[in-house]
């Protein structure tokens, strides 16, 4: 009652006359001085607290200094007054307010609080106080000032006499305070590598993870999420913390939190408790954060680490053989380091499938498969064997697209490409009519167009074309092999049922100038893959030209056509033999027909047709029926300028424009000025679509110009500046090989040199007597190696002189190396300093 009494008096004033708020606040503020009795001071603080929100400025002016004094001197003795004072200051420093003036006031008060380090240091110390409420309010005030002036507070923290211990100890407190503590730590470590390191040293990782386990593991709610985000910040840009973290037991704990056995052996099957878990939204978020941490620890180097195998296995299992939410699976594949992909063929997984209509309650275990087979299966059919593929939901298409990226890493090595293509060839000893084995990839490529209206199949064709293009692009040897692929003829012919009018052109449609594919053709001599694709392209165009085609089906047909055209463009590029086969299979007619009467709305298909026609003309360098002269007259008739114009217009289409290295899954329909058929609506909510992958767009952008120049060139002009005739392109390819080999050799030599230097140092150090000897020896070897290096270099120079183009190539190579190194550095990989030195030395010698 005393409190009210006093407030009342203070407000009313001794004379009973109503006072202004300023009078009241001044009066109350005066009572904050240490000379006042503690009880009176407490009452004054409480009254000021009540007035602070409404009179932020006045209370700030008159009372802030006094309040800070109370925090400094009284909080230890009387937690209640300390707490009230802190809470008042929180109100004064608050900047989460709508009005600008209030916000500025908050900053002003914060600056006053931070004028020197005393209050901040006191607050850090109070985090270790006995009194729960005092700890809590100190935490809240620290959060407030950290939000307003992070750097000042961080600087004070580094000098705090109490050190980091109390800051971390609050994490052991009661549940309510832990949430605040994590918020405070999150603000404290933001963008301060040094504080991150200090806290790691003092055991913050261990404390954060015990919060996670205490709060129910990954199924825990926001506290767990916040704790894991904090872990992420501590690790993400802090290589020192990453190496510290690796040296603890925590990597094991990361596995256990996901119910993954950290000691799993390659020959062991992953238990079901990992593969089939309970999932909800919180858990997906939290698991995502754990996976991010795993990805960080793996780094781009990946498998080299002690935990490399376990982590890689975990990511692969979760992505390809679990019931994890699709978004989580996407994350797993994204985080898989390129180098780890080499482990895929040797991993044996047991995928699961949800039993239909059991609402995810029951699961069938499928047959074991290798990691690479499971990956291909996922790309070709979609998650859970394409159960939901028709819906084309974002995450499920993302998953397939991300899997393509993983597969691409797998193909880094040319031998792998060759091996895969070789696996598609007919067995050699099986006689003439032998056919290629039907692998999922090949099957996807040759799905006959009469079933293409099936949405799942359309996606399969698209993904198959993308994968196959990855195998062939800039790989002459693979292209040679690919021409020998003889797919087993699938029933190509439409049934003569009611809807079988599929291949019949709409009435009044002129017959295609090319030889229309007929029954007889396909039953004759076995066709190779290139011929089959050419035929399917023609069939797809026929289907597309049907007048009554619904807008949705038309878009499906366009997708398939784009898939074929982009694959063929990459295949025929620099491959005169393939060009000849394509032309002889009727490809020329197909393209010319389309360009004769192109769509008025769509710019992509005509643009691609023009591009492919240009590729054919440019690389039509083998003797054959269709000569360059013939083609030239066709080009003239179509109008070279018109064709160039078509190619250029394609550039503006959103489906090309927005594609980036990791973004080729587009919303359906892709927004942009080129809205296709206005009658088109997607079949499902949230449907997505794909048209081209980045590799194709990149290829197309790089070569579009060459083709545009080539198209206007004379039939007997050898070849435009960068394009070569068949022989030349083979020469370039082989020279490319030579250069790659030499680059590898040079690198090997440089490595040897480095090792040698290192060993010579090492030996020199251990025994003085041996030192001179071994140094001399290694110098000798070094000289020999340097001579060899020099020889390699001069050889390289010769090669450079032979082909101007290759200079460009080399330049790209070296700048890419430099960039890679930069990137490696950025990503925290070790690029040892000596390596740099060595290179500099090398350059000086040049």
């Amino acid at each position, binding site marked *: 009652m005393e409190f009210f009494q006093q407030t009342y008096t203070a407000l009313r004033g001794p004379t009973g006359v109503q006072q202004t708020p300023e009078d009241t606040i001044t009066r109350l503020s005066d009572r904050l001085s240490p000379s006042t009795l503690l009880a009176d001071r407490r009452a004054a603080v409480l009254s000021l607290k009540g007035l602070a929100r409404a009179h932020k400025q006045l209370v700030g002016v008159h009372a802030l200094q006094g309040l800070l004094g109370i925090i400094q001197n009284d909080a230890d003795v009387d937690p209640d007054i300390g707490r009230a004072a802190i809470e008042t200051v929180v109100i004064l420093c608050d900047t989460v307010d709508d009005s600008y003036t209030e916000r500025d006031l908050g900053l002003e008060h914060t600056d006053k609080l931070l004028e020197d380090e005393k209050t901040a240091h006191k607050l850090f110390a109070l985090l270790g106080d006995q009194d729960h409420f005092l700890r809590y309010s100190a935490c809240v005030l620290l959060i407030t000032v950290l939000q307003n002036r992070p750097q000042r507070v961080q600087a004070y923290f580094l000098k705090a006499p109490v050190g980091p211990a109390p800051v971390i100890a609050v994490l052991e407190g009661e549940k309510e305070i832990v949430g605040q503590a994590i918020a405070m730590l999150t603000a404290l470590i933001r963008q301060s590598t040094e504080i991150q390191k200090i806290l790691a*040293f003092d055991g913050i990782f261990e404390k954060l993870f015990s919060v996670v*386990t205490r709060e129910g593991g990954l199924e825990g709610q926001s506290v767990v999420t916040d704790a894991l985000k904090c872990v992420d910040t501590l690790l993400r840009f802090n290589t020192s913390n990453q190496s*510290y973290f690796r040296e603890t037991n925590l990597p094991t704990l990361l596995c256990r939190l996901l119910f993954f056995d950290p000691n799993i052996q390659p020959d062991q099957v992953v238990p079901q408790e990992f593969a089939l878990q*309970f999932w909800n939204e919180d858990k997906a978020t939290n698991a995502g954060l754990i996976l991010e941490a795993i990805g960080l620890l793996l780094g781009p180097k990946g498998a080299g680490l002690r935990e490399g195998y376990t982590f890689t296995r975990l990511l692969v299992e979760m992505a390809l053989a679990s019931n994890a939410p699709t978004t989580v699976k996407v994350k797993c594949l994204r985080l898989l380091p390129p180098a780890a992909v080499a482990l895929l063929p040797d991993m044996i997984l047991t995928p699961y499938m949800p039993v239909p209509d059991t609402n995810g309650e029951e699961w069938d275990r499928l047959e074991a498969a290798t990691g690479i087979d499971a990956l291909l299966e996922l790309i070709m059919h979609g998650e859970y064997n394409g159960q939901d593929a028709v819906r084309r939901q974002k995450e499920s298409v993302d998953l397939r697209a991300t899997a393509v990226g993983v597969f691409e890493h797998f193909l880094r090595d040319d031998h792998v490409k060759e091996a895969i293509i070789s696996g598609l060839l007919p067995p050699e000893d099986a006689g003439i009519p032998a056919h290629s084995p039907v692998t999922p990839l090949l099957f996807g490529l040759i799905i006959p167009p009469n079933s293409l209206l099936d949405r799942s199949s359309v996606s399969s064709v698209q993904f198959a074309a993308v994968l196959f293009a990855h195998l062939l692009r800039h790989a002459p040897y693979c292209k040679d092999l690919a021409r020998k692929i003889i797919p087993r003829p699938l029933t190509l012919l439409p049934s003569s049922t009611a809807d079988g009018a599929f291949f019949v052109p709409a009435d009044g449609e002129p017959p295609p100038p090319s030889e229309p594919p007929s029954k007889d053709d396909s039953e004759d001599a076995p066709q190779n893959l290139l011929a089959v694709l050419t035929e399917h392209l023609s069939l797809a165009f026929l289907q597309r030209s049907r007048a009554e085609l619904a807008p949705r089906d038309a878009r499906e047909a366009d997708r398939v056509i784009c898939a074929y055209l982009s694959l063929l463009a990459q295949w025929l590029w620099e491959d005169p033999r393939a060009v000849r086969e394509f032309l002889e299979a009727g490809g020329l007619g197909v393209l010319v027909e389309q360009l004769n009467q192109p769509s008025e709305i769509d710019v992509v298909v005509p643009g691609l047709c023009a591009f492919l026609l240009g590729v054919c003309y440019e690389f039509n360098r083998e003797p054959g029926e269709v000569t360059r002269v013939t083609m030239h007259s066709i080009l003239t008739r179509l109008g070279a300028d018109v064709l160039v114009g078509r190619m250029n217009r394609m550039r503006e289409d959103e489906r090309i424009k927005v594609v980036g290295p990791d973004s080729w899954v587009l919303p359906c329909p892709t927004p942009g000025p080129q809205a296709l058929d206005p009658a088109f609506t997607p079949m499902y909510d949230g449907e997505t679509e794909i048209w081209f992958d980045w590799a194709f767009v990149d290829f197309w952008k790089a070569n579009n110009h060459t083709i545009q120049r080539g198209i206007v060139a004379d039939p007997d002009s050898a070849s435009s500046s960068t394009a070569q005739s068949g022989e030349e392109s083979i020469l370039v390819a082989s020279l490319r090989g030579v250069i790659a080999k030499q680059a590898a050799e040079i690198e090997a030599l440089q490595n040897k040199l480095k090792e040698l230097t290192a060993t010579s140092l090492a030996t020199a150090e251990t025994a003085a007597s041996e030192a001179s000897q071994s140094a001399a020896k290694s110098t000798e070897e070094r000289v020999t190696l340097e001579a060899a290096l020099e020889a390699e270099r001069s050889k390289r120079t010769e090669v450079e002189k032979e082909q101007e183009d290759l200079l460009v190539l080399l330049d790209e190579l070296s700048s890419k190396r430099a960039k890679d190194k930069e990137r490696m550095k950025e990503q925290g990989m070790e690029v040892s300093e000596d390596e740099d030195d060595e290179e500099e030395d090398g350059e000086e010698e040049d």
Partner: protein
Amino acid sequence: MAGPSWNYVLKFIITGDAGVGKSSLLVRLTDQRFLANPDPTLGVEFGSKLITIPEEDNKVVKLQCWDTAGTESFRSITRSYYRGAAGCLLVYDVTSRPSFEHARTWLADVRTHADPHLTCILVGNKSDLSLERRQVSTEEGERWAQEEGLLFVEASAKSGDNVEAAFEKAARDILIKIRRGVFDDDRSPGVKSSNPAGAITLDQRKATGQTCCGS
């Protein structure tokens, strides 16, 4: 990814003037390398190494070392590490008298901020350099160490001489302290024994509420 393969984790800090070779000692310990031109340390760098102590029952010790910057401007940052450490390598350069004299200041700083039971070893680095260049004799180093109750060794990060020995000597001393119960049950912030990772255990998983047929 087997569980802990060590009996103890010991936190070490390495301090001393700029340029005396602190980072070089750590790199020598962890990577068996020597860098002729290391960058000056900014703030603090972490490195770690497993060693076995034959005299103490072949106990396996994981050394977690924080190599600090010698430059004055990082003093407030590096001080934050003293408190939590179990061991300290106080390094000077035998060819630099000032670095030896400053060791006093460093020691005072360590004593103010660190755990009273911290084990400190004085390391005279660059012992590979010729006698003419020496400015601090072995005897003098040893004498001062004795006065202050420090362990002592001369080492060379360049040749590798005595580097591992320096860490081992300090680690052995800490293990003896542990055995004698100086830190009543791991109370030193810088010592951790191998029972569960930071006392974190995970309850066995909850049931998923799912069944798997067809298996």
